[in-house]
């Protein structure tokens, strides 16, 4: 598979703060690559250096084997985490404005259908809802039919329905053989969308691989949860089970043996549920704090 982006020894410092600390990775063509980490991990700084928006203190980014330069802007699409659009322009006028910036663009009809913009094409940018605004920003990122689309926390602040609609849009983009670079702190989002993830904390890479690989590598147990009122505290202490927020969390590699033990102790199984570990759990295990901290 072809390598689209290579990041080598990338470091970014702001005075005495090291936002990104000597990281290395590569992104394959057609993949959805997830940069994961809590707020302040260095995700946005990393992605903005890759986009050519800010300069690295040290290290380099290569795009198809060549150092990034200004010509790259014709071939990439970007959706920033925080960006405003020009007031008083309608969605259609905003599309026209951005179309004028590029040599090669996607026909508007195609873009409107892909990003589901038809209902609010004549609406002033100021009057768009959060989801509509993100869809317009995505359309602007796709307007030049880019090889790579950078999406920086595109679903932050959206309601669950709008998030899921947006995931579908990203899946549609992936289906067009685009390479997607996505930063997020939603682990369900990364598990849904990403072929490859890199987890960062304090500017450093702490894990890298496909979501399944990482989970298999770091976990061979599952979690069983029961209402705390049903389990005597002596039994929890004896078996080192955690009691969290009215729930008992049992970590086990053998679900059958644990269920047998609970039945033997005459514990009611009402309200029992079993959960496989996810990337959130992985992050907790690797860093000792939650991704949403």
């Amino acid at each position, binding site marked *: 598979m072809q390598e689209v982006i290579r990041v080598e020894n990338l470091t970014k410092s702001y005075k005495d703060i090291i936002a990104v600390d000597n990281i290395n990775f590569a992104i394959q063509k057609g993949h959805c690559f997830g940069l994961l980490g809590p707020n302040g991990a260095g995700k946005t700084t990393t992605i903005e250096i890759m986009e050519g928006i800010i300069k690295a203190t040290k290290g380099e980014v290569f795009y198809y084997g060549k150092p990034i330069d200004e010509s790259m802007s014709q071939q990439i699409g970007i959706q920033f985490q925080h*960006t405003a659009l020009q007031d008083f*322009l309608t969605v259609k006028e905003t599309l026209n404005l951005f179309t004028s910036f590029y040599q090669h663009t996607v026909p508007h009809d195609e873009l409107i259908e892909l990003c589901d913009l038809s209902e609010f094409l004549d609406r002033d940018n100021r009057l768009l809802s959060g989801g509509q605004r993100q869809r317009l920003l995505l359309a602007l990122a796709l307007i030049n039919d880019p090889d790579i689309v950078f999406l920086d926390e595109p679903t932050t602040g959206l309601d669950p329905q709008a998030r899921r609609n947006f995931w579908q849009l990203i899946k549609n983009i992936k289906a067009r053989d685009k390479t997607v670079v996505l930063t997020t702190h939603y682990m369900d989002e990364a598990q849904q969308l990403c072929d490859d993830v890199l987890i960062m904390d304090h500017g450093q890479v702490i894990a890298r691989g496909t979501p399944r690989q990482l989970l298999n590598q770091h976990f061979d147990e599952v979690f069983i949860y029961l209402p705390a009122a049903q389990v005597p505290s002596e039994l929890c202490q004896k078996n080192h089970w955690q009691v969290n927020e009215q729930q008992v969390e049992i970590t086990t590699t053998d679900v059958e043996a644990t269920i047998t033990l609970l039945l033997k102790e005459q514990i009611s199984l009402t309200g029992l549920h079993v959960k496989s570990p996810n990337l959130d759990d992985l992050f907790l295990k690797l860093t000792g704090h939650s991704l949403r901290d």
Partner: protein
Amino acid sequence: MNFSRFFAVVKARNIEFFRDRSSLGWNLIFPILMLVGLSFIFSGDGRAVYKVGVLNLGQSQSTFLETKYLSFIDYQETALAKVKLEQHSIDLLVDFNTQQYWVNQGSPNSYLVEKIFLNSHESYQRIETQGKKIRYVDWVLPGILGMNMMFSCLFGVGYVIVRYRKNAVLKRLKATPLSALEFVSAQLVSRLFIVMFLSSVVYIGCNLFFDFYMLGSYFDLFVIAILGAFSLITLGLLVASRSKSEELIGGLLNLSSWPMMLLSGVWFSLEGAPNAVKVFADFLPLTHLVAGARKIITEGATLADISYHLSILVAMSAVFLALGAYLFSWNTER
């Protein structure tokens, strides 16, 4: 320079401006209200001191010259002094040698100073200035339009760019192939169009009611106006070249605009002001815009006559533009 990108940004900025009704309304109504107000409240220029021109002041002796709250300006040529009186630069002209004095019938200040003068020199021959009378509203017109252009240019460019920078519109544009030159030029041309369009509408509209005095050519007036607006826009670009803070830019723009409002001859002539003030005022673009426009309107000056003001404006524009382009930053670092 890609003209398709450039014109797209010009168009987008113009749409943004003309759809912002509150801003558009203010830009149109403010100068009209000022002109209407001043035409009714004739002495609304806030001057505390009246100015009296005296021919050969050094050889003149009179108790009138000791009157408080009057300033006396020496003239050697009668013709020049009479022009100054007609242009409202001075309020009365006296020749103690020939025992004559001149008044401007269109000036309320001239009327008041004459009353004071007659207390001590009742026998002097009274002469009224000849030709079409220049009202105060005619004299103040270039100042008010110039001041409105100044605010529109400085705040309309400076504040907008800083706002774009702060809310990441600039960052989004930087991520496209749009170059800094294309962006900055588009802002400049867009604002120039807006300012000239609005100033023309205000001038033409008010002219229907006020029938403004105009001795020179409208083309020459348009040239000095466009050059003045250009230099003020480039000053706005320079002030906004790097900052991300709306508070800071507000302060810097006020720092740039207030000296011009006070010292560029908007409200009162700098005739008789200390030399240091005149030298300082010469470094302000609005001074040259207002002085040039006023000479065209009240003296019928041609472009050749105001070539000093034109060349200063060209030089200032070149310096501001070069510095602004050199210092301009998308400032996308967080």
